[in-house]
């Protein structure tokens, strides 16, 4: 059941075009495994047959499903812990000082998958922000299916076991049948929207904190550079960018500097870059 080189090249080109994610050699098995359910749903006997159908009659809906299936959606609550500890112990106290006039902050979860990251942010803010403050969390993902799931805010027993302290479960979720649903007070602070982070980004008011974790690893250097540049335009001058533990801006975009926040690293825009300097747009 191995994919032909031509089929793999077709899928890789499609995914590359729609998401900028590069599927290198050796990912044939992953592609086949992820596409089997999509092929079955479309009534095809095999992934090859499914791909032949798509190539004969290009179908945007089927193409979107392929991209959805191949963009990573693995996630857990407070994933990796350290960035969330940095958020509550370092970043929020500083923002509470810096935004004392407006008493409002904006955060962005830029690859929110099924919603664990933005809801984890919402839980952290609910616990950390003083009375009288307002906050909003913008959550985006390349996968339309994931966005629809995340909006519902419903999670299985298996999902709520993953990294979510039980005190936070009982305070922030309610049982709905066999599932757990995020309480309305938390759902109301998160806005979900499908977005390709590697494409042109819409004009949005700037963010105080951006989580862009475990996304850059899928892109080639040029795409990484363009994503960091575009994201930087939406980050407030004294804002904070969090990347995945194995990701960095170093050697990719000199407009950022790495700062240590507890056990995590964060990235901030260099303040003292004179106008007109190379690399600054």
């Amino acid at each position, binding site marked *: 059941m191995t994919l032909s080189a031509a089929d793999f090249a077709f899928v890789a080109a499609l995914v590359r075009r729609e998401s900028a994610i590069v599927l290198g050699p050796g990912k044939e098995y992953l592609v086949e495994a992820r596409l089997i359910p999509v092929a079955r749903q479309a009534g095809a006997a095999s992934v090859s047959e499914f791909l032949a159908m798509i190539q004969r009659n290009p179908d945007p809906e089927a193409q979107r499903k392929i991209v959805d299936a191949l963009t990573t959606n693995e996630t*857990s609550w407070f994933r990796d812990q350290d960035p969330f500890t940095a958020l509550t112990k370092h970043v929020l106290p500083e923002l509470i000082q810096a935004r004392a006039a407006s008493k409002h902050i904006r955060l962005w979860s830029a690859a929110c998958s099924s919603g664990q990251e933005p809801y984890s942010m919402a839980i952290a803010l609910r616990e950390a922000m003083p009375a009288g403050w307002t906050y909003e969390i913008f959550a985006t993902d390349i996968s339309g299916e994931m966005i629809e799931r995340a909006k519902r805010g419903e999670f299985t*027993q298996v999902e709520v076991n*993953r990294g979510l*302290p*039980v005190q936070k479960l009982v305070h922030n979720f309610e049982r709905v049948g066999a599932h757990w649903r995020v309480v309305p007070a938390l759902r109301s602070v998160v806005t979900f929207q499908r977005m390709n982070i590697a494409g042109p980004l819409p004009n949005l008011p700037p963010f105080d904190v951006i989580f862009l974790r475990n996304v850059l690893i899928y892109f080639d250097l040029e795409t990484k550079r363009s994503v960091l540049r575009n994201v930087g335009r939406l980050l407030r001058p004294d804002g904070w960018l969090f990347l995945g533990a194995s990701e960095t801006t170093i050697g990719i975009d000199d407009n950022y500097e790495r700062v240590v926040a507890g056990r995590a690293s964060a990235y901030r825009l260099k303040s003292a870059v004179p106008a007109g300097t190379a690399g600054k747009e």
Partner: protein
Amino acid sequence: MLAIVIDDSRAMRLILRRILGQIGFDVVEAEDGQAALDLLAGMEKKPELALIDWNMPNMNGLKFVTAARNSPDLREMTLVMVTTESEQSQIVRALAAGAHEYVIKPFTSGAIVEKLALLGLVPSGASL
């Protein structure tokens, strides 16, 4: 580190023993709360961790948690319920009785490791 797994299902005890073994725990087992209290009474070095099922004969997990929290010898032990009891009110009861964490069955091995990491019982980043 030493852990006790308290569950009346032999299969479940084996699964939990294997997961704990992979992150460096030595494991002892008991098939209900009373058997666990008896076993612990005879142990000079008490376990740092107990994984406790809820529904068991003789003494259930909730009663064991209450007994452990009231025992000066066992006060340092971290108590994690691992159970199919998934009603919010039941979870709140277990926490009120003194459980530190709660894992709902079915679970993945990663879920156990992550919960123990939250409790500071495995190095951050340990995974299976």
